[in-house]
């Protein structure tokens, strides 16, 4: 999980892209993971469990769950990973601004 995310963030440097997490760990664990895994992208801290306010509103039951939004904030892909995720991000970046 972390290596592919790190590599995506690396590849996207300088591009209009952001990886944002919604995290379900207790705060101290989250802090440790951020340090240990070199997590440079931001995450909302969702209260320390999988039943936090954001995860509940978004009806998240499976972990991880991924949503990909275009530059207009529209949901374009759901629950894709690895190469499919990379390809989707590239595709959206290539779309001209509307």
């Amino acid at each position, binding site marked *: *999980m972390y290596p592919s*995310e790190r590599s*995506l963030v690396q590849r996207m440097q300088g*591009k*209009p*892209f*952001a*990886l*944002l*997490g*919604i*995290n*379900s*760990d207790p*705060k101290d*664990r*989250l*802090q440790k*993971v*951020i340090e240990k895994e070199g997590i440079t992208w*931001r*995450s*909302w*801290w*969702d209260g320390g469990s*999988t039943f936090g*306010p*954001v*995860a*509940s*509103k*978004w*009806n*998240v*039951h*499976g*972990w*991880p*769950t*991924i*949503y*990909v*939004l*275009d*530059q*207009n*904030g*529209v*949901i*374009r*892909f*759901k629950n894709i990973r690895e190469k499919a*995720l990379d390809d989707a*991000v590239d595709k*959206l*970046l290539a779309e001209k601004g509307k």
Partner: protein
Amino acid sequence: MMRSKLLRTSLILAASFVFWACGCGKPSGDGPQARDFQGIKLEYDQAVQKYSKAYSAAKSDAERSKLAKEFPNSGKYSQRILELVQKNPREPGAVEMLTWVINHDSFNSAGREAMKLIEQYHVDSDKLGSICAFLGMVGSEEDVKLLRSILEKNPNRDVQGQACLSLGRALKNKSPADAERYLERTVEKYGDVKSGQSNLGDNAKGELFEVRNLGIGKPAPEIEGQDVDGKPLRLSEYRGKVVVLDFWGDW
């Protein structure tokens, strides 16, 4: 979350919760088949415990990857349980046995055989809540077919409600319009049926929010909160960028 067993771990955790919440863990019946079933389950649980101990004791990622390949295969246990059931498929205790097989092997022929036996002999059982909950999570064609049969034929209101909610879940990506109808029906007809810590109505409303607002092509709702350092973070600040939202945890 261990990458290589992500889906299985989530499903087993979810299934265990549902199983527990439905109180289906108590053995029903005392006969030789029930005892054999308890024996098989115990063997499997011990194999999983042994594996977990070894995994925790592993000192490197390489060692862990190697061990992960040896996670006990539930398939052979499911086969033995199916053989027990087939000796007397009408026996009420069979539902609990078939539930175990579905929870552990719904993806393969053992699970499909168990589902066939449920449809054939136990579609009217009042103990199908747990199976219904589980089938809603993956929602394959076979899962949907069995859920529809149960909704149609089962006389128990709690079971009907669970089947209705699960149909909503199973269809939400493939047929959102159908999913919405099942979810609305769950709220209307079965809203007060208890489910874990809440009820089917609340669960269905959560699903309805997702179906109506979080589908492909919908504008993502705002997310407002704080990051781990307590600094404010808002999704709308990132308009103009391609955003990947990742609901995650290190657990």
